[in-house]
């Protein structure tokens, strides 16, 4: 019985992996100029927060709701950090329709952010029986973010 939830979640994440692989591939394919607009420090701060939430999520699977609350807090901080960066980008004229960098970055980061937001809502409501499955979800999207950070923020600096 306990295996079904994580197995179903693993299958779902397999399909998400293909989905994000293709979106990241599209970002790389266009290799468009514009990464200079990204704020590496702010991105690194976001990344650090999200990776810290992986640890707190792992502790939360033991059943301690306080660690779950910390995870939700860190996730929310990540989204706020992303939101601030989006605003700066838009102020600098980098938008969805302005050019290929805006198109690929906002689609990729936006769709990822949407998944984090959905994850936050589910984490807030999740019964303790489903927490292991949701932990997989959370680890996965932290990893996806790490790839996006490396490809979009770090990879483009060089």
């Amino acid at each position, binding site marked *: 019985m306990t*295996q*079904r939830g994580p*197995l*179903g979640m693993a*299958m*779902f994440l*397999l*399909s*998400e*992996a*293909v*989905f994000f692989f*293709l*979106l990241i591939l*599209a970002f790389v*394919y*266009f290799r*468009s100029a514009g990464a200079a607009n990204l704020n590496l420090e702010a991105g690194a701060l976001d990344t650090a927060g999200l990776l810290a939430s992986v640890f707190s999520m792992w502790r939360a699977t033991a059943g301690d709701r306080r660690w779950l609350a910390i995870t939700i807090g860190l996730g929310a901080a990540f989204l706020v950090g992303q939101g601030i960066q989006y605003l700066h980008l838009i102020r600098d004229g980098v938008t*969805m*329709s302005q*050019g*290929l960098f*805006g*198109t*690929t970055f*906002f*689609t990729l980061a936006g*769709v990822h952010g949407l998944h984090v937001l959905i994850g936050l809502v589910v984490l807030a409501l999740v019964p303790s029986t489903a927490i292991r499955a949701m932990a997989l979800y959370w680890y996965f999207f932290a990893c996806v973010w790490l790839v996006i950070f490396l490809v979009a923020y770090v990879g483009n600096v060089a």
Partner: protein
Amino acid sequence: MLLITGGSIGAAINLIVTVTTERAPGMTMRLVPMFAWGTLVTSIMIVVALPALAASLVMLLSDRLLHARFFDAAQGGAPLLWQHYFWIFGHPEVYIAVLPAFGMISEIIPVFSRKPIFGYPFVATSTVAIAFLSYGVWVHHMFAVALGRNVLAVFAAASMLIAVPTGMKIFSWIATMWGGAIRFTTAMLFAVAFLLEFTVGGLSGVVFAAAPVDWQMTDTYFVVAHIHYVLVGGTVFAVLAGVYYWFPKISGRLLDEKLGRWNFWLIVIGFNTTFFVQHFLGMLGMRRRVFTYPDLPWFGALNIISTVGAGILVFGVLLLFANIAMSLYFGSVAGDDPWNAWTLEWSTASPPLLKNFEELPEVRSRRPLWDSKHPEAPDWLALGGGA
């Protein structure tokens, strides 16, 4: 469409988890019915292929609603990216549509030939092989895009390769029928017709897997004929066989066999009349996706034949609906096991009770119902079937 994609993935996950964790005691993966094998592999394919469609749709929606520039060549976007992403989904989708059909045929042909399926491990393995290969052939939908000779060669070879596991299945089904006591029920008629029609569709597919042939045939009615022989001659015929086979289990009543025969012959004659001539029309150069055609020799005559066939096909399909509607109320009562079949669904009531089985069935071979009917010669004894 994005929502349908999500729904399909959800259903597929449900099926994968069910097949892997909810089997009856003794039902190992080497004993599950071939239809369950087909469903499992199809579901995994859905999980891996449909997100490619979802990604394409997200990008397309961004373009259309948010004025993004993924596919707008005038703004530096790449329409070619759309073609790749769409067909990375699109070609596996063809096999997603046909693998469950293969599974149904693998259930129906043995029961009406009174023989266990020939080469069970090969039928299962070829299903997995098809699933893997189907991810390496998408570019054969794009041969006319000028992608470079090496790319074409690789994808042409891969596309031809996929005919091998498919051919294995065809030979397994023929070998199952060989020497069997065949009962030509309507379900079996559709299954046999499936073998013939699908082989035609498969062979025309191998023909234009060769890139130069594809350059000649692309966007002609030859492609239209091919896709219909695969999807109608393949999937739809198998589904019709499945409808006649499982309708009694689902509804508790048999479909009328006499109407079934009319239904079968009208559909077979109508289908072949409609689509076979389109091979010739395509080779003569008639373009698809254009509502009219030039007045060239044979074009008119062949199109008339095709139109008449479509008319016949309509009557066949209407007869199917009539048969279903009438049999639902007036059909003869089926009983638990009208076909003297072997798999577990036929051991329970028709239609099945709320929890399917009153007690968990014991499974020791691929034909558990045969075993309980023939305690003197069960499969697990004769074939070492527990293996």
